[in-house]
């Protein structure tokens, strides 16, 4: 990587940034119940914003400057909410056993035998399952279903129907990686917090910490309408399916070609997903920035999935949008995994892209 004066003062992941991400990941903030994460963000950004407000749905909208002085209004979006579950019915009050339903896209095959936390006090419980001794080999081939599982709080009366819950996986730094729940999208939130600490010469930064992304991009829709930006940059966490292919058959390619993104290959720039085609002018701007500064980057393989950009780019008369993600393995499971270097390079790519961004970027036709 080239060293020049621009790089010396660039954002870096230090223990301070790790502590913020740890707090954010350990917060319990399932779609519809983002209060805990929102409060953490408010505490963090208070010194760096002139104005912030929480809107009707719970989005936190933060403004570096009260009055818009510059021409280009840039929206940054990162979603506060995480996937999880809600207790929906009390089956045994004395034992503290509840039925639950999932919130957001969780494969039920990751649920059984995990510690969970429920409610504002993070009361501990577990999702247990039938003991192997009581099952048949055939039974074990059929996955557990949500209907067949229960949240077991072990008595104590610390939970109630309507409470939200998540896996109770503690944040842990492992070598050059981070293992935690909810990295999707607390790592985007942490990145947005960091971006608010810097000044940008030719733009106004409007940051939306959005709600209810995991249940249909609901927060981003109204946030984009309210902010009415010239363009939007969505910071998310996208799946890395970079695991070995386990099919030995000449019909299939010899290696995993559908990795979506790969850990250690830098920030993932979106070209298109199921919900959005990224604005090519913004794609070009990010790529040029990465090339100029020697920041590694990768294109997210076009295909499925979606980010808040899917809602944002369709607001009002249309908002040119792009998504940039930290690649993460095992998102929407008890323990997701990212590389710290990918996070740092994502932060730097977005930071430098903002530094170099002016109204000129939209002058060319797309």
């Amino acid at each position, binding site marked *: 990587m080239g060293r020049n004066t621009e790089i010396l003062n660039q954002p870096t992941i230090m223990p301070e940034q790790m502590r913020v991400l740890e707090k954010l990941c350990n917060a319990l903030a399932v779609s519809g119940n983002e209060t805990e994460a929102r409060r953490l963000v408010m505490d963090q950004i208070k010194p760096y914003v002139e104005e912030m407000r929480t809107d009707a749905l719970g989005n936190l909208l933060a403004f570096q400057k009260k009055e818009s002085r510059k021409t280009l209004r840039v929206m940054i979006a990162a979603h506060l909410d995480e996937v999880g579950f809600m207790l929906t019915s009390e089956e045994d009050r004395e034992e503290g*056993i509840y039925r639950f339903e999932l919130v957001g896209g969780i494969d039920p095959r990751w649920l059984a035998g995990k510690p969970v936390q429920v409610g504002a006090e993070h009361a*501990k419980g577990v999702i247990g399952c039938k003991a192997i001794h009581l099952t048949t080999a055939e039974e074990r081939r*059929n996955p557990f279903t949500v209907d067949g599982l229960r949240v077991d709080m072990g*008595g104590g*009366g610390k939970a109630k129907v309507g409470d939200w819950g998540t896996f109770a996986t503690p944040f842990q730094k492992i*070598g050059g990686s981070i293992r935690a729940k909810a990295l999707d999208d607390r790592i985007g939130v942490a990145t947005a917090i960091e971006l608010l600490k810097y000044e940008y010469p030719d733009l106004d930064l409007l940051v939306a910490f959005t709600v209810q992304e995991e249940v249909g991009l609901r927060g981003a829709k109204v946030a984009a309408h309210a902010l009415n930006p010239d363009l939007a940059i969505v910071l998310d966490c996208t799946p890395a399916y970079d695991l070995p292919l386990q099919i030995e058959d000449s019909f299939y390619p010899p290696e995993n070609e559908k990795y979506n993104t790969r850990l250690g290959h830098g920030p993932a720039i979106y070209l298109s997903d199921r919900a959005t085609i990224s604005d090519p002018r913004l794609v070009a701007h990010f790529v040029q920035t990465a090339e100029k500064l020697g920041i590694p980057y990768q294109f997210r393989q076009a295909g499925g999935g979606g980010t808040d950009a899917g809602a944002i780019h369709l607001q009002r008369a249309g908002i040119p949008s792009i998504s940039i993600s930290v690649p993460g393995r*095992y998102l929407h499971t*008890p323990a997701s995994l990212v590389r710290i270097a990918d996070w740092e390079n994502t932060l730097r790519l977005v930071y430098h892209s903002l530094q170099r961004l002016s109204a000129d970027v939209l002058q060319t036709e797309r």
Partner: protein
Amino acid sequence: MKTNHLSNLLKKLTSPPGLSGYEESIAQEVESLWKPLVDDLSRNRLGSVLGFRAGSAEAPRPRLMMVAHQDAIGLMVSGIKEGFLRLTEIGGVDQRILPGQLVQVHGKRTLPAVIVQPPSFLLPPEAQEGSVPLSYLWADTGLDEKEVRRWVQIGDPVSFSRNYLELGADYVCSPSLDNRASLCALTLCLQELQGRKHAWDLWAVASTQEEETLGGAATSAFQIQPHLAVVIDVTHASGPGSPSHKAYPLGKGITLGWGPTVHPRLYEAFKDLAEKLEIPYKMEAMPRYSGTDADRLQTIAEGIPTMVISLPLRYMHTPVEMVSKKDIQRAARLLAEFAATLDIDFMDKIQWDETPKS
């Protein structure tokens, strides 16, 4: 007995991984806990920990063996590919609980890892639907391939990450409560026996390899040649997923085994004692096997009259096993009272009916 004391003890006993055959960590913990409680401490050739307390009657004295297995279920590294670890099981593990489990890989260094289910499109068609077999799951340490090869090799044990939780007033949740909860009861029994006289010689055994071969208890019994043996293990507690006719309520008492593994007169002695002490219990019907060390232990040498006491436990062989502290206290008390009040001529009392009385 203070419940704080019990919690601390249980926390200590559930901390070491001690997978079957790789039990040094738990054996050392048992030895340090038992050292002040016994007259002599030794290791059996296969690794069981044997604690001896001399009786007060005149020698030669009869011998009572009380055994709880110390080993735990888990996994083992069976392959490494592109930095991902392939796993095989130690003891019985349901593949359906594995995706998302936090584990520790005990290599040259102990590395945290997570067990993961790959995306379907990376699996052969027969593994894409349903629960993904263990043979297709990976453990991811978060390290790159070079680092993984430096610290990990095939054969390294992999244990579930320790996570000790107290739930409500009485329940405890942790990996390896099968059978550390029973080991806790046995340790509390030895503590209760401090300062108490007992006519019989007592052998407390933390047996090895129950989850694989039942070999620890059996070989220890051959070595000790006990006149009576009591096995303390766990049984299924009622709760989500448990068929009600094969499970016992949590925190409502222990179970006393009944069936071919258990000597009927010994069962009666425990039943009478439990009733006298007002310790709640249920008879646990074991029509063929007990599923515990007792199954092999009863046929050692010329045969050993054997008893099985069990603690109800939810979600057996998962990392979220759940037991009741009260039940542990009950088992400890019953064991201690039985050991302390054993008559020197107890063996004469448990003759089969048709044996001519001399």
